[in-house]
């Protein structure tokens, strides 16, 4: 196996995904198989090849720091699951 169950659990924690035991088992098998197929990448000689992050020739897009019309607070918060005034309400952060 390319991945252990412990590694899958650790990755899920990094990704803020709760998984039950059955999911850990299933994803360990599936992700291991997928990564084994992807070993083909390791066989490619990439000496002196720079990485490509995106395919356009555009670099450093800047705009003037100007105030422009934007959405109102009401519009932005209209989809909020829970709010208090102009704030989003969440569960306890510590504890």
């Amino acid at each position: 196996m390319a991945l252990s169950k412990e590694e899958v659990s650790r990755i899920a924690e990094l990704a803020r995904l709760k998984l039950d035991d059955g999911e850990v088992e299933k994803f360990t098998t599936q992700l291991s198989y997928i990564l084994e197929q992807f070993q083909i990448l390791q066989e490619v000689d990439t000496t002196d090849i720079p990485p490509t992050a995106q395919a356009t020739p555009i670099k450093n897009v800047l705009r003037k720091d100007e105030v422009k019309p934007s959405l109102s607070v009401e519009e932005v918060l209209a989809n909020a699951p829970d709010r208090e005034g102009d704030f989003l309400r969440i569960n306890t952060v510590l504890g």
Partner: protein
Amino acid sequence: MEKLSISQAHQLLKNKEVSSVELTQAYLEKIESLEPSIKAFVTITPEVALKQAARADEMIARGDIKPLTGIPVAIKDLISTKGIRTTCSSKMLFNYIPPYDATVMERLYGSGVVVVGKTNMDEFAMGSSTENSAFFTTHNPYDLERVPGGSSGGSAAAVAAGEAVYALGSDTGGSIRQPASFCGVVGLKPTYGRVSRYGLVAFASSLDQIGPMTQDTLDAALVMNAIAGYDERDATSVPEPVPDYTSLIGKDIKGMRIGAPKEYFERGIESGVERLVRKAISKLEQLGAVVDWDASLPHTDCALACYYIIAPSEASANLSRYDGVKYGLSVRVGENVLEDMALTRQVGFGDEVKRRIMLGTYALSAGYYDAWYLKAQKVRTIIRREFDEAFKKYDVLVTPTSPTVAFKIGEKASDPYQMYLSDIYTLPVNIAGLPAISIPVGLEKGLPVGLQVIGKPFNEGTVLKVASACETKN
């Protein structure tokens, strides 16, 4: 009512043979009668559509008629539509109503279009069959037991069934072209940076593009005329002038140099698909194009792995926004906010989305970044350079769109890797940021087969020209 193209519907509206309200009503009736079997739409919007149609009729009465005015369109449910629910076919966004329109919607509304609904897709555009939709699977109009392809399967099926005159889809690794191929319609993925992504719910930001799904190449050109162009709200949109994409449709292709890369006819291709695609390419040859059947892109076999490291890596970052705090699903039964987030994401995401988030998180994590993510970005450079080299010799490249015709619902659903292989011929195009189209070139045992035409960056016009030379109506 037969299936109308945009240009046909435009003539009817222009000659006042039909009003937009009448046309819209006819399409809404067709949706109502076909949806129980096709299931192309997540949300149908009759009130919005009829209001927009009435406004379009006023425009037409004033003589203000553009090619898309008053014509019903279906929109993939990951393009933000102000006031119309946009779910990405995910439980995570089951109740999300965007407070703003995507740039493509502003542009379509500027033409007076009529939105009849939002179409089903694989959740967050991750998949090739719509089976990953959290709501239901869309059925292929050519065979209801088969998938329409994906992820823009709802858009493809809606156009194929005549539930809308055309649709918008999005394409990250083939999500416009593969369903277009499976449903016998035309699907164009523009050059990366050609169409604004502002308001497109992000999957893999360096690969995503919005594009048209239509009855023919002329319609694809008409939609491109409306949606293409620079947008200051998308920093990756490119300030290249927008040509009239209809100008090269049907033009002589004599002397054009066409490459048919041999790697695209090797791995797991069905014989019926290969036969029809070769026949279509021979037709281009008969029309005077010079076809090199021995063209080669040697690193094609690395594209799948390259894509499935890069796209999930970008997705794992993009989908971190779904935390149950700002919008969408929110599970609040944990001990603290972090537990709430993890629970929200456990309930809100389906299996394929979870797989890709984890794959991406792994490839980006400390200790694995160089071996996987950075390695994939370097292989991306190699794949791009191979296309650059090929385009010194050829004006366009032609390939099958997918190695198979539409497969049976359930056939690949339990094997994620098999599903990935369905996009093996379309992924390299996104990796290199190129424009490509899929057009129908015939039926194999009653199921559509697609030809893919790939062009140089910003050469959508040339792609449309070659495609129009060999398109056949199914």
